[in-house]
């Protein structure tokens, strides 16, 4: 339901009985689920509009079992869909109907913390926040903090190259992972990256990070840890227009300040989360900015002063400074819980993830507002303002016939807006199954072909997470995205339907 039915790219015909028999031979009983009663709860991830029941779910306990599963699937030509905590928002862990869902949730040990070298070696199922909790006694933490950090796993973060509210200053997953152990579809283990800062040969680690489970499965991760800043404080500023808030963002960066976090929420979003977190957000503002400074107390004091001055000069109607750590966390908790909190006002939401140049912010938000009226669906916006990453939340009710389709069309139009503004369809949630059609708008056939060639270098039979992230050219033709792209006609050689 929801979006147009996803066409399975390559077709697979799997003997389920044989598959289960072979998997049972390499896994403990508690690590193999195959009755529908057990597998149905795995039919979707954090994007529940897309659902498919896999043939089997495997929950290996160690790397050897992951290898064994891969070998079985490779031999029987069975699709493998890796899954971390199942919190993804693009359907990246949507199962394949002829495939095995490979859950890493039992592999969640923190193997080693080296406080002097500032690294932690962990299994892929370890929760993002658990790393920071475990390293806190050493005054260290793992910087990328996606909103779902309480639950999402580091393995999933690698698959999606997750960001978070602090990534403008501290980078994305790709900037904070040193090394991984990686199992190929043939069941071979590779080490990519290094405990040193550079590694030999091509930078395959950078390629694997963000590859959405299409190139292999990560079984061990060495992350970089940073010293926890002595102090962090957040300025909460209210604006009476989105334009002014957007300008304030440009002015802050223009002044040479790189805030630890810089987030924007519009009025609808603020109102939605305030009911849950009681963060004390001003409810009448058209937009609020959360701007964090961290460092030594002296440094923070000086930077906050500059931030406040820029905000005031940019027309802030109200400025509040977090008075203690509890209030700082409360300011952020509203932002971090923004997506699910929408579940309190509307049963379903559809979270978009386009990124645009910051200077186009007002223009794109106006466009979204226009579309919201056109489709008759509300759409609050939260926004990683510092790096131009938009999260419009399209609100709908899946039980009302037609609304899911409407929401999907609305979403697609938003992504097109982002591409037209010089941006991208996904900043951090990944393409998954959700934005696969829009990939045909963002990339030209030659580029998509290169992606597929890279995929083939890792996975010649296309068994890893088929149907996700990179569309086939046929699929693009079917999608009908015959836009004129950079002055050329798209897919001139393909038949039109």
């Amino acid at each position: 339901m929801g979006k147009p039915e996803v066409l399975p790219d390559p077709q697979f015909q799997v003997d389920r009985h044989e598959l289960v028999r072979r998997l049972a031979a390499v896994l403990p009983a508690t690590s193999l689920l195959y009755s529908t009663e057990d597998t149905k709860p795995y039919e979707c991830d954090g994007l529940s509009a897309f659902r498919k029941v896999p043939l089997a779910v495997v929950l290996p306990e160690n790397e050897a079992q992951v290898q064994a599963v891969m070998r079985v699937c490779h031999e029987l030509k069975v699709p493998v869909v890796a899954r971390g905590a199942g919190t993804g928002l693009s359907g990246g862990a949507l199962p394949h109907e002829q495939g095995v869902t490979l859950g890493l949730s039992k592999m969640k040990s923190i193997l080693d913390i080296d406080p002097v070298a500032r690294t932690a070696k962990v299994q892929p199922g370890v929760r993002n926040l658990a790393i920071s909790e475990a390293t806190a006694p050493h005054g260290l933490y793992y910087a990328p903090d996606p909103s779902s950090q309480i639950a999402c796993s580091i393995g999933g973060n690698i698959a999606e190259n997750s960001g978070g509210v602090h990534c403008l200053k501290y980078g994305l997953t790709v900037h904070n992972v040193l090394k991984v152990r990686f199992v190929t579809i043939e069941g071979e283990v590779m080490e990519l990256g290094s405990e040193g800062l550079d590694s030999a040969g091509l930078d395959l680690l950078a390629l694997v990070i963000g590859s959405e489970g299409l190139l292999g499965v990560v079984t061990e991760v060495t992350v970089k840890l940073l010293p926890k800043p002595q102090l962090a404080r957040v300025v909460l500023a209210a604006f009476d227009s989105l334009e002014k808030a957007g300008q304030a963002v440009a002015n802050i960066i223009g002044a040479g300040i790189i805030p630890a976090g810089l987030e924007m929420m519009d009025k609808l979003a603020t109102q939605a989360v305030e009911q849950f977190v009681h963060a004390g957000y001003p409810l009448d503002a058209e937009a609020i900015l959360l701007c964090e400074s961290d460092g030594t107390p002296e440094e923070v004091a000086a930077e906050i002063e500059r931030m406040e001055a820029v905000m005031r000069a940019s027309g802030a109607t109200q400025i509040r400074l977090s008075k203690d750590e509890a209030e700082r966390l409360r300011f952020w908790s509203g932002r971090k819980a923004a997506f699910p909190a929408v579940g309190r006002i509307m049963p379903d939401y559809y979270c978009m993830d386009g990124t645009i140049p910051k200077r186009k912010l007002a223009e794109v938000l106006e466009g979204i507002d226009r579309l919201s009226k056109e489709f008759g669906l509300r759409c609050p916006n939260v926004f990683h303002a510092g790096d131009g990453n938009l999260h419009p939340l399209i609100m709908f009710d899946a039980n009302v016939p037609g609304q899911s389709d409407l929401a999907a069309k609305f979403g697609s139009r938003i992504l097109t807006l982002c591409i037209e503004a010089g941006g991208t369809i996904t900043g951090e949630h990944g393409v998954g199954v959700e934005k696969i059609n829009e990939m045909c708008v963002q990339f030209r056939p030659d580029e998509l072909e290169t992606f597929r060639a890279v995929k083939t270098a890792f996975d010649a039979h296309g068994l890893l997470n088929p149907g996700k992230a990179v569309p086939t050219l046929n699929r693009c033709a079917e999608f009908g995205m015959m836009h004129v792209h950079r002055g050329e006609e798209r897919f001139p050689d393909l038949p039109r339907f």
Partner: protein
Amino acid sequence: MADVEHWAEAVRAAAAAKRTLRIRGGGTKDFYGVALEGDVFETTGYSGVVDHDPSELVLTVRAGTRLSEVEKTLADANQMLAFEPPRLGDNATIGGAVVSGFSGPRRVAAGSARDFVLGVRVIDGQGRDLSFGGRVMKNVAGYDLSRLMAGSFGTLSLLTEVSLKVLPRPEAESTLAFPMLESEALDRINRWAAQPLPLSASCHFDGKLWVRLSGATAAVETAEVRMGGEVIGKEEADAFWTSVRDLRHEFFTGSTPLWRLSVRSTAAPLSLGPQMAEWHGALRWIAADLPADKVHAAAAAAGGHATLYRGGAKAAGIQRLAPPVLALHKRLKQAFDPAGVFGVHRIHPEF
């Protein structure tokens, strides 16, 4: 001025004629790598800044643009390339800085060349004009092929344009020096790095640890007091860090083979010969004529790898990749450059 379409044609022609091309910007890194094979293909004709809006923190520039020009443009906006690319000669280009993947002293704090790549425009081995990544800070659409180009030394494609994240220049900078032996220096600098101090570079050489602090004035001043040490004057400090960045420091000037070891920062002193340690110990330069096996083994034991950077027997000096990883390299090369037009044998004797 050269343009992308002509280049694409040239690549197609080379592929058809089974010729190999040796992509060359300023030629300042010709000394590096296993071998220089193929007809020289100059990129300096395609230059100029395409887009730079300081409040976006993004710079898009043509690959043949001189590094010095790029840095001037940024300095005018009080910004910088935070990976501090080495300028190994006046002609060094931004394209060379990116595809070499070399980063300077600030790398340990700010990140490497690949960390700052946001998007690329390249011509692949079939002469196709392709764009990956973008001009925005976050972009996870498709595989991250743009970062893959950093450090590829032109083995996969011909870089024509690159978009980089740029950062404001630090408000204040200060350099401290501490006389101490290597083992103590490694321990101290790693322990400092685990504390919230604004470290932006470190270098141990000849019984002295140099530490650079960068950031807000308040932070730098507090750290100076906390860490102690001798405060080095600005002129001397700048000259020192530039000489380390550009390999013009006296340590690099001899003709002895120069090894570059990327290892765990806390690895014990390697005692292989005259040495300079950067990046809080994660980068160790060794100037000595040594058997490759010995250096490679020492690097592997220290959690990393070694490359014969300059001089000596180059092919032997490259640390071999594990067989499955090498096989993957070859398949990837095939994906980008099936006819084998680019950078053959530049970074590894076997591909």
